[in-house]
């Protein structure tokens, strides 16, 4: 069981998934999270300001940036998922985390095409795409919670305790 835990801490490829103790997936996910949160802010703001066209267009761009960022994060995420031994609670959590994220990304792809009709028009974001964005972001929050559980609860891709202890040695004692 301990060896299975240590297996999940090691990258399957240090070049692609990040070296030991420095996984790339957590930093890559900041791109889609930031872009999609900003996109929803733009959506809401587009229904408040006087000239909403620029916010409407900006929101579509943010969705696209988020989708490309999510694909990059997913590729590295798959590698970390493969590092977790199958049949474990950590692996099942990883599968749910992956499925939710893929669903959210697909929803944003659909959302991107849904918005093409209004793109470039001087109007605010329609209620339908806005609600889809809000629901997608909520699902992303749940998925992010599971991602946090994988890292902080199960310690997937986190350095082992012997390594962590090095950061707390007191040179005076």
């Amino acid at each position, binding site marked *: 069981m301990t060896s299975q835990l240590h*297996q999940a801490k090691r990258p*399957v*490829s240090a*070049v692609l998934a990040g070296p030991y103790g420095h996984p790339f997936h957590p930093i890559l996910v900041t791109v889609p999270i930031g872009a999609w949160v900003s996109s929803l802010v733009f959506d809401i703001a587009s229904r408040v300001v006087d000239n909403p066209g620029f916010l409407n267009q900006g929101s579509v761009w943010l969705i*696209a940036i988020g989708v*490309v960022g999510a694909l990059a994060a997913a*590729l590295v995420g798959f590698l970390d998922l*493969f590092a977790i031994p*199958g049949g474990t609670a950590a692996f099942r959590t990883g599968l749910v985390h992956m499925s939710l994220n893929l669903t959210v990304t697909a929803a944003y792809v659909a959302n*991107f095409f849904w918005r093409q009709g209004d793109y470039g028009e001087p109007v605010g974001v329609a209620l339908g795409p806005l609600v889809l964005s809000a629901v997608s972001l909520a699902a992303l929050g749940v998925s992010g919670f599971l991602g946090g559980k994988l890292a902080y609860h199960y310690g997937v891709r986190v350095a082992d305790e012997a390594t962590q202890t090095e950061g707390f040695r007191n040179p005076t004692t």
Partner: protein
Amino acid sequence: MDVAALIAWLVTAVGGFVLLGTWISKGGARAPRTSNFPPALIFGHFALAAAGLVVWIIYLVAETSGLAWTAFILLIPTALLGFVMLARWIPTYRSRTVTAGPGTTASPEPAEKHFPVPVVVGHGLFAVTTLVLVLIATLD
């Protein structure tokens, strides 16, 4: 044609993920190495194919011919690495009935021995289809 290439590419990717997942879970990436695939080979193939797929998706929306060419050019080394793996996998595949018998030495099995043959064949066929479709769509 653009979308047909995307679909072929996605199907190829699913097969590739099955093979990559099998290879890692059977210990292909773990030391001491028993696999005939150096990790740089399999992960290089994965990274190039994935980067190409992302470029192709951006091309579908942006419709810039430079993006289509970039995706096609990324596919060429991807295909070459794929053929290297195929060449290294075939001897493992052909020896699997031999080593399964009694009285053989207990050398550890390479991870790629566990590859389902239909997935390998399907991955290869869809990969060739993708390459052809991407080339036709790019030349269009």
